[in-house]
């Protein structure tokens, strides 16, 4: 019975994960290593990787700053509408990314005040980098906040007060006490954000217009290559993204283990 259950889990794992990955890997190299290299170093592919990296980096920085700020406010301040904000933060988890993208299209369309305003200022939001960043921000915003808020609540304010009684000003308190206490939470939240930003497809597809060499990210490039029957290109780029995601996941697991021991230490105190 025990072996049967373990067998089922293995089978499920093989069919769902290992099989497809191995098959994809074999297909990437089906026309040789040179073809694989040619596909991932084509200008279109390189542009896709660069654009994905740019969006991910900008989104990560914005989420680090605003996610930490939001978590601090939610954990520490009592204000009108706090529970509303707290509830709405999870919304991106529940809403389909396509809908998120569609909302941006509506919001910044030429018929709206916002769209007209940016139009007059000759700032291109839709089908350009700004909208792609906004869409990715929308889907990744909850990660940081959800990771840091409970950590801050467990931390409490006593350590910060202790630092103040020892002469530390507010900036020193934040840098020397609050941030170090959050460090593994930050790593964990950042990893999730990066993984999600790299993999985002739906929301970005809607707002980017998928313009070759302009607004085509790595995931959009995979999609486009597949649609164009260029399977080697699709497989090669996909495998590269997969390798990056796997590396990130490894970092995540290490961070999780460290964060858990930190929480356990906090509990022991």
């Amino acid at each position, binding site marked *: 019975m025990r072996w049967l259950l373990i067998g089922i889990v293995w089978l499920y794992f093989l069919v769902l994960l290992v099989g497809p990955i191995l098959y994809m890997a074999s297909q990437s190299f089906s026309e040789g290593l040179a073809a694989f290299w040619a596909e991932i170093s084509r200008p279109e592919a390189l542009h896709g990787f660069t654009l994905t990296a740019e969006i991910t980096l900008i989104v990560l920085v914005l989420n680090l700053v605003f996610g930490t700020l939001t978590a601090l406010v939610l954990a520490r301040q009592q204000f009108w509408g706090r529970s509303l904000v707290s509830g709405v933060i999870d919304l991106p988890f529940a809403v389909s990314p396509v809908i998120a993208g569609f909302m941006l299209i509506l919001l910044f369309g030429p018929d709206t005040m916002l769209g007209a305003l940016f139009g007059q200022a000759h700032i291109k939001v839709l089908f350009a980098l700004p909208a792609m960043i906004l869409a990715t921000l929308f889907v990744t915003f909850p990660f940081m906040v959800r990771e840091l808020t409970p950590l801050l609540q467990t931390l409490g304010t006593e350590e910060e007060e202790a630092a103040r009684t*020892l*002469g530390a000003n507010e900036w020193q308190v934040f840098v020397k006490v609050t941030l170090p206490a959050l460090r593994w939470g930050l790593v964990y939240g950042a990893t999730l954000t990066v993984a999600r930003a790299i993999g985002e497809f739906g929301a970005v597809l809607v707002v980017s217009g998928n313009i070759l060499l302009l607004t085509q990210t790595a995931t959009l490039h995979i999609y486009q290559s597949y649609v164009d029957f260029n399977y080697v290109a699709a497989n090669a780029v996909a495998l590269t993204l997969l390798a990056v995601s796997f590396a990130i996941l490894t970092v995540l697991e290490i961070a999780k283990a460290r964060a858990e021991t930190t929480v356990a230490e906090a509990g022991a105190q």
Partner: protein
Amino acid sequence: MKIEVRGLTKKFGSGTAVGNVSFVVNEGELLGLLGPSGSGKTTVLRLIAGLEVPTSGDIFIDGKRVNDLTVQERNIGFVFQHYALFKHLTVFDNIAFGLKIKKWNRHDIEQRVLELLALMSLDGLGRRYPHQLSGGQRQRVAIARALAPRPSVLLMDEPFGAVDAKVRQELREWLIRLHTDLNVTSLFVTHDQEEAMEVSGRIIVFSKGKLEQAGSPADVYEEPATEFVARFIGSMNIVEGIVRRGQVQVGSLEFPAPGFSDGQKLQVGFRPYYVKVAEDATRYRQQAKLRHVYFLGVAYRLEIETADGLVLRSRMNKEEFRRYRFVVGQAVSFAVTHFRILPQESGGPSTDIEAGKPIPGPLTP
């Protein structure tokens, strides 16, 4: 340095945590703020530290008004109830924290930290992290960290609240020695009256944000200024009766109350060791039934009930107890040898009265 608070008041919303409190902590003194939880004593400590802003009143440290100084500028050492050690820093870096903020040079920091580690019997633990220490060690690291930048006063919130009973006793004795050595003006908060009595030179008793009494442990114990203090400090029998012909009548018990007018309602308090109990029904004038005997380690506590249903506690040392053969449920005689008329709600001094010659016995307190 001397600490003085005048008319200190702190309101949270509609509630008053601290109401018009004034007291002085003399230079070099170790003073305990004693009160039940929620009595506002921690708030007083936080107000002095600058962690809370008073609604009204003044705070002076070393004769200087510090109301407008931030917590960083007040140069106080604060020990938090749950230590609040920096978990991501070693013991050494925890103690060095305040010194680094104050930009001491590396050599001086190292010297000061090593000096404190030795003083706190923490030698060799500098590289440990807080989670690798015992409760008592964490407590000492917290005190070392607070003392490191040479604060003018040391404020401690329930310093022994979070350690077990045995360690608590060691820490108390250790704190008294430390205070004798360093002589830094210290103020600590506790809800444990025994702790306050043992550690402090002087006690201030708090209740519901009000200062009830300030005095030496002996003063507060022997001459409680209010009913609250009488009930809170040590154990006390408190009975209520009406004055008739100069005597407070409580069932068959009579307590002389000279100077009080007939018909007045008064409360009378007496410590359990002033209730003398004997098996012999004729030994003392009052009669009662023995309800329970409790063994307290150093003494026994007897619970007796009079025919009127009045339940009183008596305390007897072991030697005395062994002279009798008490059986729970038996009839006993008793007398109250010493009592106090407790002050009325309106205040006024409490009157100490030696019970008018009870039946003389061999057992004088």
